[in-house]
């Protein structure tokens, strides 16, 4: 990579780092792993940076999705993070609220199988279209549709369960 390419890459990461890390964080329920995932994806992007990637954001997103699926394949080797106790978090400060929201989101998303989870994240939270999601996931739009429906169904059940647990 030439110095000018390195500068361009640095600018890209500085501008989009947070956004990309949030995407990774939605795909994996763990801070460290999300960062690992993002670094791996950016590493692959850096390797192809001189090939003038059309859309670096889309490249990183696709890589993140692929890495998530890889990770799901060897999930039995990945340490499962400890169950967060959201009742401990005091909801008084802004940051605490964010943490609580994160732990709830993790809990909901963790109840989904990996493909439903990816579909939900891409379609609902990232706001990708059905066709775009299908392309990222290498599947047909119909599969996206069914995954999304099942995923949301499960997510709703999970939300209701956590709500009940909280109100109990």
């Amino acid at each position, binding site marked *: *990579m030439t110095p000018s390419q390195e500068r361009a890459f640095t600018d890209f990461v500085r501008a989009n780092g947070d956004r990309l890390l949030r995407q990774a964080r939605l795909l994996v329920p763990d801070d460290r792993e*999300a*960062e690992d995932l*993002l*670094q791996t994806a*950016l590493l692959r992007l850096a390797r192809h940076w001189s090939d003038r990637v059309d859309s670096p954001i889309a490249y990183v997103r696709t890589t993140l999705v692929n890495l998530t699926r890889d990770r799901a394949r060897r999930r039995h080797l990945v340490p499962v993070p400890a169950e967060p106790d959201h009742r401990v978090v005091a909801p008084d400060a802004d940051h605490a609220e*964010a943490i609580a929201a*994160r732990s709830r*989101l993790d809990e909901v998303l963790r109840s989904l199988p990996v493909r439903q989870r990816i579909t939900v994240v891409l379609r609902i939270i990232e706001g990708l279209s059905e066709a775009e999601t299908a392309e990222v996931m290498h599947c047909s739009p119909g599969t996206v549709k069914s995954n999304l429906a099942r995923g949301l169904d499960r997510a709703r059940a999970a939300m209701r369960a956590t709500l009940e647990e909280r109100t109990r």
Partner: protein
Amino acid sequence: MSTLTDPALDETATRLRALAAAAAPTAAARPDLARVVLDRAARARPVPRWLVTAGAVAVAAAVTAGMLAGRSPYFTVIEPSSAMQPSIMVGEGVVFDRSLVPARGDVVLVRLEADGRPYDSILRVVGLAGDRVGCPEVEPGRCVAVVVNGSAVPEPFLPAGATAPFPMSTVPAAALFLLGDNRAAAVDSRLFGPVPATRVAGVGIEVVGLDGTTRAIAGAPERRRPADGDNVDPPGGVPPAREAPGGR
């Protein structure tokens, strides 16, 4: 944006979006993320192919140059004939130094030719250029010793009277008079005359016996041997303590 028809799922989607928005601040990329990734990429970057090729060429050139320029002066030849018995037996190795100039008594490797076909021979230098060499006949068929320039050459490594008489001759310039130690059988300068000094490929410095031990060549002048520079204890016992030369 959402195209969901089921209002319940739509509501779930909205709540998920709200949760994600609320949770967003917990995920912040480290400020030096680009640097970290670039460093990792630099470490993982494979060596360029042209560099590998250049390195291989450089190594090959260095090895070739080393072989051509800085080759060792030593080489070993296995004695194939009985021409040098009893000094060198068949099958023993002779270590030669190609940088030395032969002197009287040296064993040399010479490149000879017979019937137009080249062959190597290991023989002893008896006379140098300008020497008068011969074995005068004292009684019929017997000669006491080889005579060089009027004086008999001591050859303690040979049985007495081993040499058959041969006439005196003068060695021409830039030539050597060579004899095999096995005087009865050797094909040497008695047969084909003095040999041009340019045909000498090396001067023998030691013999590698059949048991692998090395020894000096009997009757040859003392030469520096390859192992002389090795940092090993000299043979024999530990010498007695001496006072330091400076004295104190």
